[in-house]
C-alpha cells in the first residue's frame, strides 16, 4: 500500500475525531477557548469597547459631536481636547466616538444585506441544481467580476448618495461571495450519507435545508462574515472619504480623514486618530475571523 493511500485512510478515519473536537455551545468551553487564544481575546475586548463607545457616545463623549469652538481650531491634543480639534473646532475624540457608531452600523448593514441575499441564493441553487444552478453560478461570476468599490460607487450614484445606500451597494457586492461559498457547502452536505438517510426517512426539502444543510454549511460562512466586516468597514471609510457615504455634519472616520487631509499642512496630527481607529477595527475583525477559522477547523494550524 502506498503512503498516499495511508494518509487518505487515516484522514478519513480522523474525521469523526475532528468533529468531536468542535467545542459544543457551552459557556465554559467558550471562555476556555478565548483564554487560550490571546489574539481573539484582545480583538473581542477591543470590539466590545468599540460597541460600548458607539452605543453610549452621547453619555461618555466629552463634547457634543457638532459643537464648534471657533476659538480652538485645529488644536493639537491637550487636556481639554485629548485628541485635539478639527478645522471647525469640534472635539476629535467625541467625533471619533460618534463615528464608531456609523462605522459599526455600516459594516453590519453591508454584511447583513450580503448574508440576506447570498446565503439563501447559495443554498437554493446548490440544493436545486441543474440549469438553475448553472444560471445562478453564472450570475455569481458576473457580479464577482466587478471591483467592489467600483460597483458600490456606481450603485450609490444610481440610488442616491448616503451611508445606507452606499452600504446596500457594498452588501450587493458581498452577496455573490457568500452565495458561492454556501453553494459549494450545500453541494458537499447534500451528498453526505446522513442527508441521504434523512431523505430515505421521508424528510421534506425544507426540513433538510433547515435542519441538516444550513447548520452544516454555515461554518465557513461565519468565518467569511467576520472577515467581511473588516472589508465593509474599510469600504465605508473609503466611500465616506469620497463623500459618497456618511454626509456631513454627521461624523465618520473616513469623513474625518478627508477633512484632516485638507488641513494636513496646518495640523498633521489630526490624521492619525481616525486612521488608527479604522486600522485597529479592521485588524480586530480579521484576527477574530482567523481565530474562528482555526477553532472550527482544527486541521489547519495557526498561520
Amino acid at each position, binding site marked *: 500500500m502506498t503512503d498516499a493511500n495511508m494518509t487518505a485512510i487515516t484522514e478519513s478515519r480522523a474525521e469523526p475525531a475532528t468533529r468531536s473536537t468542535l467545542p459544543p455551545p457551552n459557556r465554559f468551553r467558550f471562555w476556555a477557548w478565548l483564554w487560550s487564544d490571546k489574539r481573539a481575546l484582545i480583538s473581542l475586548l477591543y470590539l466590545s469597547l468599540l460597541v460600548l463607545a458607539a452605543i453610549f457616545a452621547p453619555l461618555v463623549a466629552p463634547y457634543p459631536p457638532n459643537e464648534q469652538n471657533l476659538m480652538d481650531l485645529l488644536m493639537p491634543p491637550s487636556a481639554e481636547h485629548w485628541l485635539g480639534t478639527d478645522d471647525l473646532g469640534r472635539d476629535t475624540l467625541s467625533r471619533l466616538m460618534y463615528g464608531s457608531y456609523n462605522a459599526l452600523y455600516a459594516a453590519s448593514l453591508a454584511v447583513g444585506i450580503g448574508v440576506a441575499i447570498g446565503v439563501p441564493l447559495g443554498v437554493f441553487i446548490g440544493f436545486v441544481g441543474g440549469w438553475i444552478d448553472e444560471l445562478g453560478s453564472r450570475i455569481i461570476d458576473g457580479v464577482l467580476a466587478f471591483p467592489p468599490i467600483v460597483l458600490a460607487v456606481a450603485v*450609490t450614484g444610481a440610488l442616491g448618495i448616503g451611508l445606507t445606500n452606499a452600504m446596500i451597494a457594498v452588501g450587493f457586492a458581498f452577496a455573490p461571495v457568500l452565495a458561492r461559498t454556501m453553494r459549494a457547502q450545500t453541494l458537499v452536505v447534500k451528498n453526505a450519507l446522513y442527508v441521504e438517510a434523512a431523505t430515505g426517512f421521508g424528510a421534506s426539502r425544507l426540513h433538510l435545508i433547515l435542519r441538516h444543510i444550513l447548520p452544516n454549511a454555515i461554518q465557513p460562512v461565519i468565518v467569511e462574515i467576520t472577515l467581511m466586516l473588516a472589508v465593509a468597514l474599510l469600504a465605508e471609510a473609503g466611500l465616506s472619504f469620497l463623500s459618497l457615504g456618511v454626509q456631513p455634519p454627521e461624523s465618520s472616520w473616513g469623513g474625518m480623514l478627508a477633512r484632516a487631509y485638507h488641513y494636513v499642512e496646518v495640523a498633521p496630527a489630526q490624521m492619525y486618530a481616525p486612521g488608527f481607529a479604522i486600522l485597529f477595527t479592521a485588524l480586530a475583525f480579521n484576527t477574530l475571523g482567523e481565530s474562528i477559522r482555526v477553532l472550527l477547523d482544527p486541521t489547519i494550524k495557526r498561520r
Partner: protein
Amino acid sequence: MMDGVLGMVARRLMQLLPVMIVATFVVFSLVYLMPGDPAVMIAGDYATAERIAEIRHIYGFDRPMLVQYFAWLGSVLKGDLGHSLFSNEEVLRLIFTRLPHTILLVVYALVLGALIGIPLGILAATRQGTTLDKIITSVASLGVAVPNFWLGIILVTLFSLGYRWFPATGAVSFFEKPLEALYYATLPAVALSTGVVAVLARQVRSALLEVLGSQYIRTLRAKGLSSRSILWKHGLRNVSATMLTIAGLQVNRLFSSAVIIEAVFAVPGVGNLISYSALNKDFPVVQGVALVLVLVVIFTNLLVDVLNATFDPRVAAST
C-alpha cells in the same frame, strides 16, 4: 503545445460569454435603481422637456426591459456609451483618455506587490517558526487591514510635504514622459500595493510550505539535493501558478482601491472620474466606467489563465 493553448483560449472565451452578459446586464440595470423617472434623473437638474423626451427615446424606457438591454448592448458594441451630462463629451473618449493613468497605477502596484510580497513569502516559508517568520506574518496582517488611502495621506505628509522627494498630487502621461509618469505614480502605487504585498506574502508562504512538505520533495532531499536547489528548481516552480492566479485576482481589488487612492493623489484616472461623476449624478459616465472596468477585469483573468496554460501544459489540457 501552442494548439492546446489556443484551444483553451477559445473554450475560456465561450465560458466567459455568460459572465460578460451578466456583467453588462448589471451595468445596464443600474438605471433601474434610480428613484423616480430614470429619464428625468439622467437628464439632470436643469434639463428641458425636450431633453428628457430625447433621453427617454435614446434609452427606450417605453420598451420592455430585455429589448432595452439588447438595444443598449448594441450601441455599446458600436462603442457608443453616450455623452457626459456636464461636458457633453463622449463617454468612451472621456474614459480612454483617463484609463492609462489608472492602469499605470494598478500595474505599478502589482509589480511592487510581487517584488516585495513574493520574497517575503519565500523568506517566511524557508524560516518557518522563526522571529523573522512571525514579523513577516504580522506585517502581512497589517497590510490587509490598513486603509490604503490613509497610508497614501501619510506618504504624502512624509515624502511630499516633509522631505519633498515626491510630488504630492497629479500625474503625467506615460506615453509622453514615461520616467516622469513613473515618478509621479510612485507614492500612489506604494499606497495601493500593501494589500498585494500582504496577500502574496501569505499565500506564497503557505503554498510553499505545502510543497516543501510533500512526498516528492522529501524524496529529493533523501537523494541528497541541496536545500537551495530544491527551493529554486522544484518548490518555486510549483508555486508559480499559485502566484500568478493570486496576482490576477488582486487586479480586481486594485481597481477598487484605486478609486479612493486617485482621489488622495488627484490622479486624473477613471477612479476619480467615476466617484466625481457619481457625486454629480453624471449617470452615463458612471455606467461607462463600471462597464469598461469590469471588462478589463474579465480579460485580465483570461490573460492569467492563458499565461498559466503556456507555462503548464497540464492546465491547458484540463480546462
